[in-house]
């Protein structure tokens, strides 16, 4: 039985439909990350799960029971807000214990629970302080403590790390991951940050304009994006998308990328594509991740289908561990992710290779993956 089940959920604000039929299930101990561009309805979805927003139609189940009409405090959830939302007039201990106080838990039991959570999060020395006397990272911990102490069946996080600086964000990300692994909690997590999404999630849901684009494991989302939006949205730098045509050559179906001079680069059909979806002469979009574009030297030794071609280097962006190289292929810019000491020079032609094991094809009309 799934811990969280959302069935054809719709949410309207006045006449504007913000969530247009969402279906998601999350198993016990799962970590669901909601990603999508700003305004796509992530927070709204989280708020409807929490019960802070009503829903227009559909069904939300937590632990098997329908919670559509239950008050937020009765849903067996806890939420960590982007702004932390710590009560400024209360000490850290009172903040963490407030929920129990409202539920009438006796003082001694409360203190014990607060102490144990404080120990887990290493904030014991902060218990008597006010939120205003804490650093950003400490506030973040207290906010998590307030959620943890409830021992809910589902944790809801709305961009919990977006107010932290880059370094602290990485630390807290690791901490959340550790927390999830050690306590086996079920988490729904909203973020803008793809790295957070990829590293934390057991399941990613990509939203756009209130519609689910794809739900799947991080590797499914990354390697087999359901459509061009997901392909473009996940991954940094973004996936290269090139226009091509399905042709017959040497008695086999090939993808032709037209060059300016009239010739074309002929590519074998990537293994990920379903041959039934390919008609001769049809236009397709050929998608390939920057790390699958490289030179021969660094090409994945296990790659089965590799195609080589010459291209001139237009931009070189060293990024420390990698170097991003922008080259021109079939009239379009393509980003390659190469090792830091790759021997490329600006304006010089160089032999590059596509690892077609990692390539995907899209139908330009529907934008769906073939």
């Amino acid at each position: 039985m799934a811990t969280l089940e959302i069935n054809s959920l719709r949410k309207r604000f006045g006449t504007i439909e913000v969530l247009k039929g969402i279906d998601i299930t999350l198993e016990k101990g799962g970590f669901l990350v909601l990603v999508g561009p700003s305004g796509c309805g992530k927070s709204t979805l989280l708020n409807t799960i929490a019960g802070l927003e009503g829903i227009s139609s559909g069904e939300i189940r937590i632990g098997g029971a329908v919670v559509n009409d239950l008050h937020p405090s009765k849903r067996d959830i806890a939420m960590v807000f982007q702004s932390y939302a710590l009560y400024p007039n209360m000490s850290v201990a009172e903040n963490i214990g407030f929920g129990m106080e409202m539920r009438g838990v006796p003082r001694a039991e409360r203190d014990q629970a607060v102490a144990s959570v404080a120990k887990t999060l290493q904030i014991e020395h902060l218990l008597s302080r006010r939120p205003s006397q804490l650093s950003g990272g400490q506030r973040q911990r207290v906010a998590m403590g307030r959620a943890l102490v409830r021992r809910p069946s589902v944790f809801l996080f709305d961009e919990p790390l977006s107010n932290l600086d880059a370094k602290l964000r990485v630390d807290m990300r690791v901490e959340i991951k550790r927390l999830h692994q050690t306590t086996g909690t079920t988490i729904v997590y909203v973020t803008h940050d793809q790295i957070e999404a990829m590293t934390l999630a057991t399941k990613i849901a990509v939203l756009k304009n209130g519609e689910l684009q794809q739900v799947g494991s991080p590797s499914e989302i990354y390697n087999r994006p359901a459509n061009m939006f997901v392909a473009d949205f996940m991954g940094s730098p973004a996936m290269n998308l090139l226009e091509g045509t399905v042709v017959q050559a040497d008695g086999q179906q090939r993808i032709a990328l037209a060059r300016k001079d009239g010739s074309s680069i002929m590519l074998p059909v990537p293994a990920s594509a379903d041959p039934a979806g390919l008609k001769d002469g049809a236009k397709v979009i050929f998608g390939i991740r920057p790390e699958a574009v490289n030179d021969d030297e660094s090409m994945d030794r296990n790659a089965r289908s590799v195609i080589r071609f010459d291209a001139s280097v237009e931009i070189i962006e060293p990024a420390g561990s990698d170097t991003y190289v922008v080259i021109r292929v079939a009239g379009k810019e393509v980003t390659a992710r190469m090792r830091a000491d790759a021997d490329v020079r600006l304006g010089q032609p160089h032999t590059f290779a596509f690892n077609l094991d990692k390539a995907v094809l899209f139908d330009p009309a529907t934008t769906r993956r073939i």
Partner: protein
Amino acid sequence: MSAADLVTSTPSRRGPGHSRTTRIVIYGLLFLFALVYLVPLLVMVMTSLKPLDEVTGGNMFALPRHLTFAPWSMAWGEARIGVSETRGISGYFFNSVKMVVPAVLISTLLGALNGYVLTKWSFPGHKLVFGMMLFACFIPFQSVIIPMAVILGMLGRIGVNLADLTGWSFGLGNATVNLVIVHVIYGLGFTTLFFRNYYAAFPSELIKAAMIDGASFFQIFRRILLPNSTPIIIVTVIYQFTNIWNDFLFGSTFAAGDTAPMTVALNNLVNTSTGVVEYNVNMAAAIIAAAPTLLVYVIAGRYFVRGLMAGAVKG
């Protein structure tokens, strides 16, 4: 003007790049204006401490030659107030206190509750309701006197009936209670405006967090909102206290004779014509009448600049 802005902005110590001369001019002007404002108060205090012959015969700005507190005790306990039997303004002073304290507390609390509902539990039509309350702020005093008198008359009759039935009128018909009702209703527009603006900037996530923690409507109000409202409560209390204490029109209309508030009594004292005008007694009475509002400013003023919301959310 947002009340929240008013209370949280701290003026910077020293403006950048002001030369010495500029600062001398600025402080000189400030000193001059302060003096202009303080001279009348000074004259009042000095006059109230002089015997009458020194007042009528001497220079207004001269220091008292025979220091005396007799005018103060006269004003407080013995002076004739209009045609009333009661002597001195002390009784009227307490009339005002009995009226002001409940009126300020009730109107502030209701304003806070209104602000809370209007911002955090907004219902369909909340803008219209708020608009109408705002409109109430701009209705001149004079235009509500007659309808108010009619309503208070009705309440008075209900009070009489209640007294017949139960032996107690529940305060209805009592002049002080009437004034409390009038001031609470009249002040509600302002207090609601203050709190609504303050709570509009209050982070809604705190309310949501409290809801998830299981706090009820009133628990959220009492445990989360009110403890974080000190600056605006102080602004509202000062505003309401000053307005209600200084009100003359409602007081003179709805509370006659011994039930009149301080302002009305002061007027009656000054207008009582028994030969010589006792300026020293009048001045003492006027200072007593102004003292509570001054006191409220002195005590509460320092809370004005406190930013109590620091740390609630990342700023």
